[in-house]
């Protein structure tokens, strides 16, 4: 395993003056490639904020953030957008698919947006991913016609489309029934095992966390375990 990302003395505050809220208070974290890690902690502990900063969707107030040897702490919006597109995948709690597009169109979005068009190669890769997710018969279905579990599997496929080194999942099974949740987790574990993709999964579910090989616990803006 090699170093994938590192954050040091990470501080994030929202608001100012009396309304200032310090969500992260000098957090330190390092991850290696190929890890399957659960991010645990009570609500308001700073899990989502940490995921958002690691996903380059937000700058920290202070501290440093590097990934794949690139200092992302103060990178420009454009640089972060390109980096995010190539190296980071997201899975959200509510799947967050584009509702007016088919399953395949949603999956290939990260590649199409980078290349400026939907290439044959991208479509083939998208189809492979959907087949792997058990959605071979739903490839050209509008996402509105899919079940919650199917939508979340499409979201996982989309997160993997550009073969990112890191996939950040924020409560990916929080909105699914037990069977669908375990199905999605099995898929994540399988991909992690076979492709070496690093997963950091924010969850409250101990059974989901138990599937992961590492548990990272956040409390009051710091790592506590």
């Amino acid at each position: 395993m090699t170093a994938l990302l590192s954050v040091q003395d990470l501080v994030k505050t929202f608001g100012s003056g009396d309304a200032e809220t310090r969500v992260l208070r000098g957090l330190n974290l390092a991850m290696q490639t190929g890890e399957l890690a659960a991010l645990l902690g009570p609500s308001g502990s700073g899990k989502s904020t940490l995921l958002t900063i690691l996903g380059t969707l937000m700058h920290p107030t202070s501290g440093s953030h590097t990934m794949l040897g690139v200092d992302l702490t103060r990178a420009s919006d454009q640089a972060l957008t390109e980096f995010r597109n190539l190296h980071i995948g997201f899975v959200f709690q509510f799947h967050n698919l584009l509702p007016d597009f088919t399953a395949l169109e949603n999956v290939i979005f990260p590649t199409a947006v980078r290349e400026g068009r939907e290439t044959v190669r991208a479509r083939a890769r998208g189809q492979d991913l959907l087949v792997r997710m058990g959605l071979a018969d739903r490839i050209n279905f509008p996402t509105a016609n899919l079940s919650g579990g199917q939508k979340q599997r499409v979201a996982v496929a989309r997160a993997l489309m550009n073969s990112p080194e890191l996939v950040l999942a924020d409560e990916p099974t929080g909105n699914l029934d037990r069977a669908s949740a375990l199905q999605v987790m099995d898929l994540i574990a399988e991909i992690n095992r076979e492709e070496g993709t690093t997963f950091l999964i924010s969850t409250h579910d101990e059974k989901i966390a138990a599937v992961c090989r590492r548990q990272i616990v956040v409390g009051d803006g710091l790592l506590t375990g």
Partner: protein
Amino acid sequence: MLYALKIAIRYLTASRAQTALLVFGVAIGVFIFIFMSALIGGLAEFIMARTAGDMSHITIQAEAVDPALVLPSDGRTVLLVQEASSQATAVLKDTPAFIPLIEALPGVIGTSQQINGSGFLTRGAQVTQVSINGLEPGRESVIANLASYITAGTASLGAGGVLLGKTLVEDMDLRLGQTVRLQSSGGVEALLTITGIYEMGSGGPDRRQAYVSLATARTLFKMPQGVTRVEIKLADLYAADALAPRIRALTGLDARSWTEQAAQLLEALRAQAQTGYILKAFALLTIIIGVASALLLSTYRRRPEIGIMRAMGAGRWFVTVVFVSQGALIGLMGGVFGAAAGYGVLLAFPARESFGPGQSGLPIDITQGAYGLAIILTTLGAIAASILPARAAARLDPVTAIGQ
């Protein structure tokens, strides 16, 4: 760009009813723009056809002769000067030499040599003062289209014939074929037969004008040779200002453009055109506001999707292009549909050829609909209108947007 366009099209087709309503609104604006263009342009054509269309575009008038000295001066004091008289008619004598030169000029479609003066028309005990116009037979309709105004008889002027206006005929209780006495201001009389009655629709010519042949006018005004004026008709009446100096240089005579006499008409046409520009600008402004507000709503509605796209690696430029493309497509579709509808509706109106003298019809000129301009301006306007919503969309914080 291609992929952003695909997403823009998908967004538009996903909300078909909203898009159709928006395109319809833009099309209405374009329709108004086109209708106003055709109406303002047609009205200008109509006014020109009904006024300057019957006017001489360039007129060569014989210059008035200076009053003669009856007694020579001693170098310091003028002893006696003949009083200027309206009866002392100035004459253009060299028309056979310069008329062919003028007619050879590009843009000149006809010339009319005339002898003009005043006189009295007598029928029994009735006497009316008239303006006498002597025209060349066969060229009666070169300037004013007399033939198109004839309500009885013929426009052809033969020896011993006279054309009178309908109002004058009615005032004096005359009929076609009757004989009248025409006396010039010089006192020469001629017995003439009414061979035609015309109605131009304006009081002056219909009440006070008498057209005779050039030969009759020579007799009446004791003018065995020459004419008092030459009127010139051009294919493009707006070319008169440029051509008049050329004719002056060519003939050495005082050739004047119609615009010198019709400054107020030109001013009115300019004011009318400006009014049209303002109305069209308002139509365009309505389109811009409509598109901008619709796209702002669309941006608001799609905030979560914008956040997702940004999270997946779509840059601000990409998001901007998606929304600007929607604006452009709405503008283009609305422009094309509005232009097509405008053209279709304008087809129902009479063609511009019917704007001419003696014709009727609403003055809407289908050829002046400015269809291409309307489509281009609408598309550009819609693009401009979409920039603000697009920028707002591109500036959205993805985390906040996804959270919604």
